[in-house]
């Protein structure tokens, strides 16, 4: 038989003014099961809490209802008090007779009546409450960072700085990402290599960081604190532990291929490192183009390799890792010029992407910084920069703004003018978005000091006319058409999610938007978390960002990871769903509606191990207690503890009879 104690609070005059607390307590006392019903001026005060604790002990109460302010205010306070008095905290409920009663009604009769009802409802609920235990989940003290760009590198460094081992996973053969391809960076014009390569070395040398390049996530199982990641190390045909990176192989290799790192502007060999500062500075053989692997001819590299580290029989390897938390920093890719018909579908050599431009001016680029245009090596004197190519174009491509183009275009006009002092730089823009520290000043500098000619309007078409390119644009400020004969056209093409991102997101069980950008748990308050517990997001994986934003998000995500793995056990509220196995039919409705993939099928076998049937099983680690599964169950076999059908129906009954 339940022994409920009820404590009605005056909250000074806040409640007492419109609720006859004494009368309420008195009426409630008559409810069967209520052994004690008192009122007090300030329940939340220390003496107030003492009253509760004492009562629990003296009357050995099985449940408590505190009728005062909103549970959002003091539920924790009172549940702690109850726990201190040796009662299961989930056996205490609050009736909200302040925010939802005394403060919104001014007629004392109504107020009192409503308070009595509200308390009554809670009493009926508490009678049926079951003691719940908070859930404890063990945590693996190891993190996985997916993506070895500047974001991933920063996240790995920060996590390692917290003393936690990290695996830095990169699908390409070197870490460094897009930033390693840039020449100089806005708004400070310091050289990208100079600030990035030290970080690359630092992360490579950090004993807590394991870098896995040319590897991808194959499979992910488990849940927060307890992930099991399967990683595919793709065949590299070079044993990077034995290899010294001496470079004899790629000097001797006869095959020349356009270099991905140089955006197709330079060449590489079939065995190669992408760029001199690559980390690890170890080559790989590109199987599509290697003569040995294609036709069985050649094989020079293996012959001349001083350390015998090349093996043409190399195969992909699968590695399993226990992981506690994951940071996804998969970055972006740039739309190629070939996507844009009005700009020549990439058939004009001298229409390039902004990233190609970076390589053209970069001192470590294919021309070693000597500024030449791709078609004929001529030094361009007139360069036209076109912004919002593929961005802000819902009719054909993407509706979003790629965010960084305004800034890097301004930067590129400067780089150009520093190479060609008497050159003309034209920039076609719709709006200039320079909201960042020293950004606006930077854009002004490009125009005022480096003489970039900004034209407000879009470009309708670009076509080859003899040696030159003709740019047909508009200047909407004078409302005139403008034609420019240019030597080079640079398209600030849109940033888009990298290929394969959706597949990866599905492996991780995290959400993405219609474009493929990963979605954060909350756009404002949980910007670096995914909806799946234990998986965090940073950088351009979420949407276009510049380096400062990406790096700060990396640190943010790292902090989240450290917070998570800092304890050996996670503790979370006991309000989770529970399956009644005997009646579960395994229809999987709950599995379908669960937003957190917290429910799965479990086999039930007899002693002989034969499968009898399958039933739903809730993973308390993943369950957030939303209760969406409960109404979806046709056989009433899954129930949300703390808000069970039993408890809620009791509330309904109590209310309906009384009011």
């Amino acid at each position: 038989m339940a022994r409920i104690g009820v404590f009605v609070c005056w909250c000074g005059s806040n409640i007492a003014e419109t609720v006859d607390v004494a009368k309420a307590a008195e009426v409630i006392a008559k409810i069967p099961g209520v052994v004690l019903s008192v009122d007090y001026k300030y329940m939340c005060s220390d003496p107030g809490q003492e009253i509760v604790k004492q009562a629990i002990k003296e009357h050995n109460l099985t449940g408590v209802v505190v009728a005062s302010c909103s549970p959002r205010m003091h539920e924790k306070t009172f549940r702690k008090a109850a726990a201190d008095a040796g009662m299961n905290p989930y056996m205490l409920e609050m009736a909200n007779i302040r925010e939802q009663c005394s403060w919104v009604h001014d007629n004392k009769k109504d107020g009192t009546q409503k308070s009595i009802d509200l308390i009554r409802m809670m009493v009926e609920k508490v009678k049926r409450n079951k003691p719940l235990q908070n859930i404890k989940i063990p945590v693996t003290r190891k993190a996985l960072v997916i993506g070895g760009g500047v974001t991933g590198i920063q996240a790995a460094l920060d996590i390692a700085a917290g003393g936690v081992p990290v695996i830095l996973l990169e699908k390409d053969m070197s870490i460094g990402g897009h930033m390693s391809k840039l020449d100089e960076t806005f708004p400070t014009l310091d050289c990208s290599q100079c600030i990035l390569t030290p970080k690359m070395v630092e992360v490579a040398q950090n004993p807590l960081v394991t870098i896995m390049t040319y590897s991808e996530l194959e499979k992910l199982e488990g849940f927060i604190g307890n992930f099991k990641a399967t990683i595919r190390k793709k065949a590299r045909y070079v044993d990077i532990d034995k290899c010294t990176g001496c470079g004899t192989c790629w000097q001797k290799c006869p095959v020349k291929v356009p270099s991905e790192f140089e955006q197709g502007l330079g060449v590489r060999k079939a065995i190669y490192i992408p760029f001199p500062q690559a980390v690890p500075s170890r080559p790989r053989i590109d199987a599509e183009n290697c003569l040995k692997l294609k036709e069985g001819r050649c094989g020079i590299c293996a012959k001349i390799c001083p350390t015998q580290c090349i093996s043409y029989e190399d195969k992909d390897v699968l590695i399993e890792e226990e992981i506690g938390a994951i940071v996804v920093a998969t970055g972006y890719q740039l739309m190629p010029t070939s996507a844009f018909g009005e700009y020549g579908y990439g058939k004009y050599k001298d229409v390039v992407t902004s990233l190609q431009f970076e390589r053209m001016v970069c001192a470590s680029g294919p021309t070693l910084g000597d500024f030449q245009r791709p078609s004929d090596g001529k030094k361009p004197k007139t360069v036209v920069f076109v912004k919002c190519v593929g961005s802000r174009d819902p009719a054909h491509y993407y509706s979003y703004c790629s965010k960084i183009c305004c800034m890097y275009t301004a930067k590129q006009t400067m780089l150009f003018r520093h190479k060609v002092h008497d050159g003309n730089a034209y920039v076609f823009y719709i709006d200039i978005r320079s909201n960042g520290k020293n950004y606006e000043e930077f854009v002004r500098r490009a125009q005022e000091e480096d003489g970039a000619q900004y034209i407000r309007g879009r470009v309708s078409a670009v076509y080859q006319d003899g040696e030159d390119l003709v740019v047909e644009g508009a200047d909407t400020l004078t409302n005139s058409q403008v034609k420019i004969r240019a030597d080079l056209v640079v398209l600030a093409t849109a940033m888009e999610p990298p290929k394969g991102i959706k597949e990866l997101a599905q492996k991780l069980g995290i959400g993405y938007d219609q474009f493929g950008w990963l979605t954060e748990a909350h756009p404002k308050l949980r910007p670096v978390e995914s909806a799946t517990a234990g998986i965090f997001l940073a950088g351009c994986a979420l949407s276009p960002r510049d380096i400062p934003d990406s790096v700060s998000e990396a640190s943010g995500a790292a902090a989240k990871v450290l917070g998570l793995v800092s304890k050996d056990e996670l503790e979370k509220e006991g309000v989770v769903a529970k399956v009644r196995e005997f009646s579960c039919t395994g229809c999987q409705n709950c599995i379908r509606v669960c937003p957190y993939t917290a429910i799965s099928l479990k086999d039930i076998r007899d002693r002989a191990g034969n499968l009898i049937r399958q039933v739903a099983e809730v993973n308390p680690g993943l369950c957030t207690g939303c209760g969406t599964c409960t109404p979806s169950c046709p056989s009433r076999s899954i129930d949300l503890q703390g808000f069970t059908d039993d408890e809620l129906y009791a509330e309904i009954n109590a209310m309906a009879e009384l009011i």
Partner: protein
Amino acid sequence: MQINLSKDVDLLQFGKVLKQESETDVRKCYQCGKCTAGCPLNYLMDISPSQVIRFCQLGIKEKVLNSKTIWFCIFCDTCSTRCPQEVDIKGVMDGLRRMATREGVQPKAQVRNLEKAFALMIKMFGRVYEPGVVAGYNFMSGNLFHDVILFPLLLIKRKINLKPHFKKAGEIRGMFKRAEKVRKERASEKGKEVVAHE
């Protein structure tokens, strides 16, 4: 130029009619100017296509209905094809022309006479009898000898067949009448008086 938006403009009414006529939403336009940039006839226009859209956004009807631009537009559709915001600029020009016609605004370019000539031909013969069109056009535009030099050439090349052919002419005349009627009804629904167009 000064516009008193709070006084001179009936944006709602104008916007509604324009949307009906052009089946497109000018509010989508963010003035990137790509339409102007690609327009083959911009060099003849008094205000650029993107400006026309802008004035429409502001609801300044007089300006657009009295512009040369709407009459110079040749419907090559380069603008609409490349517009990033799916604004059918051509459709807007088209709609504005019809609105102008309805409100009896005198066209600011010569093209209309040609249309009338065409319409006349079709009424008469059911098919366009091109020498007739040219003649009719010249007559209306008061430039009787325009292009006449070309006729001998055309004749030599047997490129004009001189006998007009009568096809369903009667029926079509009937259709013109009914079209007039329907237009009147629609217009009266919109509570506008109609300047019939023949």
